[in-house]
């Protein structure tokens, strides 16, 4: 027993703690857009349904709220796991910085309460509440979603820009200015970037489901609405996101130069830095491969000084204060992936807008639907890549320039076991979630006859409308 325990428990917990945190966050972040933006899209359909007596829109809102019940439940519990993991995996981080890092969460708690309460009322209220009263019980959900994600991102932004704290000579917190913590310099743009991402990804994800349905011949009005509402939301969010992202990148250039050096893969500080597409750093830290566009990285960092803009290189700080070569390569690749896919999605939405402007209708081409059907997955990949840029680019720091990840972790050497357990559980959870949602959709589709009888808000409206 002791021998077994000795073998099992002698594994360095740091890489496993990082892996578990990364894995559970990567999973949870997919559900976040649905939690934040799906309710808004459901309310758009709901509003249209009541205001214009549109039975299809109403049916859409009602169905979505049922699917949302499932994704919200899974999002709530996977989010809870994160609040355990802060302590289970990073007790030294929380013990030292909890009084600052925790402040935004105190407010996030309020918004999460609001969201959980009203989503229950909304989902369960279809049958017995009056139509408009019911609609209004849904309105707090997207509002709480926006402020809730802003609060969570404020905490993450604080890790990048740890302000609002007074430290003594030993580096311990002596006082906290909560406003300074929440509204740290990184917060506004990071929060905006995530909230817009939630609408972008949520929109594309849901639209892609209906695009697939239309490709399979289900081109009725119900599917059209199911596509147009979320795709329009995403098509509005995409260009906005490019602007916000551009601003955030420039903020990183000015405030987290080492992260920016990793993003642009800049080994030495210099001006006239080329923008290298793809490529990597070799083992001696030199750029290899890729397509270099002369001077572009400098120019983008600060157009006012153009190619003369100096970009700080990785060598500006000692090796133990910057990401490793492998981490730089991950950050740079993910950056290219995010910008590349984001641009692709933006160009794709131009097709959609052009069709509305010139033909007053969405594109009819099957190629458009084929493209739209993959935007969901692509937008998730884009978001995950962006999140990796932000997190891996901050390495080796958990609190930028104040605490290292390695100094923050638990000493429980069994983390590798919990990582495996969590990975298995989440793999099952993700698969089941998709299967359950597909099953719900198939059931709803294969009972069209019964479906006709079911119009929300009772039989009287049904009689009046059909």
């Amino acid at each position: 027993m002791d021998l077994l325990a000795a073998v099992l428990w002698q594994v360095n917990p740091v890489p496993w703690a990082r892996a578990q945190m990364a894995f559970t966050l990567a999973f949870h972040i997919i559900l976040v857009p649905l939690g934040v933006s799906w309710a808004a899209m459901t309310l758009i359909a709901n509003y249209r349904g009541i205001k214009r007596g549109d039975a299809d829109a109403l049916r859409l809102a009602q169905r979505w709220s049922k699917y949302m019940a499932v994704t919200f439940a899974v999002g709530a519990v996977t989010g809870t796991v994160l609040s355990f993991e802060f302590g289970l995996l990073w007790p030294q981080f929380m013990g030292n910085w909890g009084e600052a890092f925790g402040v935004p969460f105190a407010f996030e708690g309020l918004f999460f309460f609001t969201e959980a309460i009203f989503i229950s009322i909304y989902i369960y209220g279809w049958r017995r509440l009056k139509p408009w009263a019911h609609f209004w019980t849904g309105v707090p959900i997207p509002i709480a979603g926006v402020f809730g994600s802003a609060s969570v991102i404020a905490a993450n932004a604080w890790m990048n820009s740890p302000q609002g704290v007074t430290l003594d000579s030993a580096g311990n917190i002596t006082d906290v200015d909560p406003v300074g913590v929440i509204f740290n310099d990184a917060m506004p743009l990071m929060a905006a970037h995530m909230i817009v991402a939630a609408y972008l990804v949520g929109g594309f994800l849901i639209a892609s489901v209906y695009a697939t349905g239309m490709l399979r011949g289900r081109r009725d009005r119900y599917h059209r609405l199911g596509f147009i509402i979320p795709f329009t939301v995403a098509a509005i969010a995409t260009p906005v996101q490019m602007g916000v992202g551009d601003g955030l990148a420039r903020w990183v250039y000015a405030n987290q130069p080492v992260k920016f050096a990793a993003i642009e893969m800049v080994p030495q500080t210099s001006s006239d830095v080329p923008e290298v597409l793809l490529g990597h750093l070799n083992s001696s830290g030199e750029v290899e491969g890729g397509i270099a566009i002369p001077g572009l990285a400098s120019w983008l960092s600060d157009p006012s000084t153009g190619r003369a803009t100096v970009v700080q290189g990785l060598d500006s700080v000692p090796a133990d204060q910057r990401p490793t070569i492998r981490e730089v390569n991950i950050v740079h690749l993910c950056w290219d992936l995010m910008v590349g896919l984001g641009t692709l999605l933006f160009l794709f939405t131009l097709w959609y807008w052009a069709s509305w402007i010139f033909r007053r209708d969405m594109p009819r081409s099957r190629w458009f639907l084929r493209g739209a059907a993959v935007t969901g997955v692509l937008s998730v990949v884009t978001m995950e890549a962006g999140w990796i840029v932000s997190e891996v680019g901050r390495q080796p720091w958990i609190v930028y320039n104040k605490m290292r990840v390695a100094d923050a972790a638990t000493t429980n050497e069994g983390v590798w076991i919990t990582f495996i357990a969590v990975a298995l559980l989440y793999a099952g959870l993700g698969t089941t979630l998709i299967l359950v949602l597909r099953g719900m959709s198939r059931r709803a589709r294969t009972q069209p006859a019964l479906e006709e009888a079911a119009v929300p808000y009772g039989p009287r409206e049904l009689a009046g409308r059909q």
Partner: protein
Amino acid sequence: MDTAAAIILFAAVTMYAIFGGADFGAGFWDLTAGGTKRGKRPREIIDHSIGPVWEANHVWLIFTFVVLWTCFPEAYASITWTMFLPLTLAALGIVLRGASFAFRKAVSRIRDQRAFGAAFAVSSVLVPYCFGAVAGGIASGRVPAGGQAGDPWNSWVNPTSIWAGLLAVAVTAYVAAVLLTWDAGRLSDDTMVGYFRIRAVAAGVVAGVVALVGLFVVRNDARYLFDGLTSRGLPLVIVSVLAGLAALVLLRGQPHRGGRVAAVVAAGALVLGWGVAQWDYLLPESLTVSQAAAPPGTIAAVLFAAGLAALLIVPAFVLLYVLDQKSLLPEEGVDESSGQATRTTHA
């Protein structure tokens, strides 16, 4: 200020223990409801009863964690570092419970419903046990101060922890049975009123016996807690016992509204009794509230957030509970299968 933050912390723990606990307790009755046919109706009542409220109730746990790590980071670090295993189990159990409950409602095949139902029910028992064991470990002084790790096993596998874990399962089952009796009455199902009433009595008796045995356990294993429970905490212990008995009395005949209140008071007084008994330690005999407290700026922010919660969240909760109790939140969405609001299949 520090005291106010500690009171908010214990209030949140109490709310979670009562309302979150009742949802777990309902899972206990789901687990013990028997086969597909025999357990159909009880499971319908359980589904109906916790469906609209469990997610909102669950947020009390998040709120507890947030207040703990923000206002008392040292205590949070020590607890999570020491209690790595039971808290990991609880986290996995929470995922399994919540997801399975949502999935069970969303699938149609009985086989699937049974699988999700089993996962939901088993984890509903696991989670309160783990939290009880953690509370027992804290209360018996097994979590060291200083944001450091205590014994990874003994901290939660010890007499007080085992006792507190069992007590948590028994009390959550008891509160759930009382609330389910009431809900069955609300649905005018007399058979189910009887069904849950007898279970409420049984769970109440078991909880009482466990609590009584616990006095001896705690006397030997957690002296500070015992002294607190028999002095400062004594009024709350007495209130808990009396309210627990009153709830059972009020369940006779047609379920009385007061029964629910009494059961809630019984569970709440028990948790508060624990808090008062170990006051003013967060980690008994090693870390006091004021030693663990964050700087004033942080505490002020959390108190402000708690004030907002009182203004905004409490009315929202009241709205949710009132709508639920008036049967205005009968089921998810609209009924797509027929004109009647019936659910035909269950695990």
